[in-house]
């Protein structure tokens, strides 16, 4: 079991669950702005400062974290916690990274929610929500620049849009359908590429 190796080798200074919890709690508490902002701080804390994880392992876990759905920060906490102390370490790290968000939001909800009807607060939040409209458009722009570079992807994207706008399919279903269509289209392209270059399957 690879997940046990770290604790066995490093038995002289075994990382405790409390250390794991506290490290991720701090990271959850002080990182603004999502998974990739958090990744930089995580790397600083785990790779450079504490030396718990090598840079290579960190990058590998980072890419695994983006492979599956969900918040990248939580996924990374799980994978790194797992490397440090197995499944219990994984759950400790995940819980640690989620807890501060949960507490801060509860605090705000308890004390600030009544003020949401205040016209000044409303005006401020209205402005914020417009910025978020701009952010969503920006995310679409970045993703579009990265992926709309061949005819297959354009077709998949168009099909996704038809599913969402015309057939009013549930967004999650539309994304998965696009994935399936992409698989179907690109696999054929791959086969043709293989035949022309004469390379076999891996």
């Amino acid at each position: 079991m690879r997940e046990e190796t770290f604790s066995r080798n490093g038995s002289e200074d075994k990382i405790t669950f409390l250390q794991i919890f506290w490290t991720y709690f701090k990271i959850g508490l002080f990182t603004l702005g999502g998974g990739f902002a958090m990744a930089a701080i995580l790397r600083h804390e785990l790779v450079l400062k504490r030396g718990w994880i090598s840079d290579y392992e960190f990058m590998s876990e980072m890419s695994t974290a983006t492979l599956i759905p969900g918040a990248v920060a939580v996924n990374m906490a799980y994978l790194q916690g797992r490397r440090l102390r197995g499944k219990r370490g994984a759950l400790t790290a995940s819980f640690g990274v989620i807890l501060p968000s949960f507490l801060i939001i509860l605090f705000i909800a308890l004390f600030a929610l009544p003020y949401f009807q205040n016209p000044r607060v409303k005006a401020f939040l209205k402005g914020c929500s417009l910025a978020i409209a701009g952010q969503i458009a920006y995310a679409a722009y970045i993703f579009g620049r990265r992926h709309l570079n061949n005819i297959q992807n354009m077709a998949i994207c168009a099909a996704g849009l038809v599913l969402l706008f015309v057939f009013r399919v549930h967004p999650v279903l539309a994304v998965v359908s696009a994935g399936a269509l992409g698989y179907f289209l690109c696999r054929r392209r791959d086969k043709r590429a293989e035949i022309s270059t004469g390379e076999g399957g891996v």
Partner: protein
Amino acid sequence: MRLLLQLFKSFMIIGIGAYGGGLVTIPLIQHEIVGARGWLLFDEMASLLAIAQMTPGPIAVNAATFVGFRIAGLAGAAVATFGVVLPALSILFIGAPLLDRMKANRHAAIFREGLQVGVLSLLFYATWAYGSVAVGSLVQFFMAAGAFLTLVLTEGKVHPILVVLACGVLGLFLF
């Protein structure tokens, strides 16, 4: 009890669909919470999301806690937060040893590329679905467009939260 179960289910769906960044959760929350269930008005949701964006932690987790609390109190917050992280944690709990192999698998890579293009469709859709409701006047359109252009022209180097705060302050004067 039924409300909590529905809340749990909705946020589990949001957790499954949240693929490729926190902003992707916004159309999902809008669809589940405002559209399908009618638990919140769009403006309420937009306010909660703005706060979720400005506070530490993943936007999906923050949004789940906040929306859950708003709909069903403390129990709602706990249930929604648990629901939104459960899909990812289950996949990791069961499949973590396989994921490394999956990364090298060509079929999985092709499927992922398709998923990402699907997410792109969703983002285009969200730009319209969220934007068309959020923007109610010409001034508001220019603010949203200004935020977009700021991010494009600086290549995203301006921290998104600064853009949100700036628009909030502008909102104080304009609305």
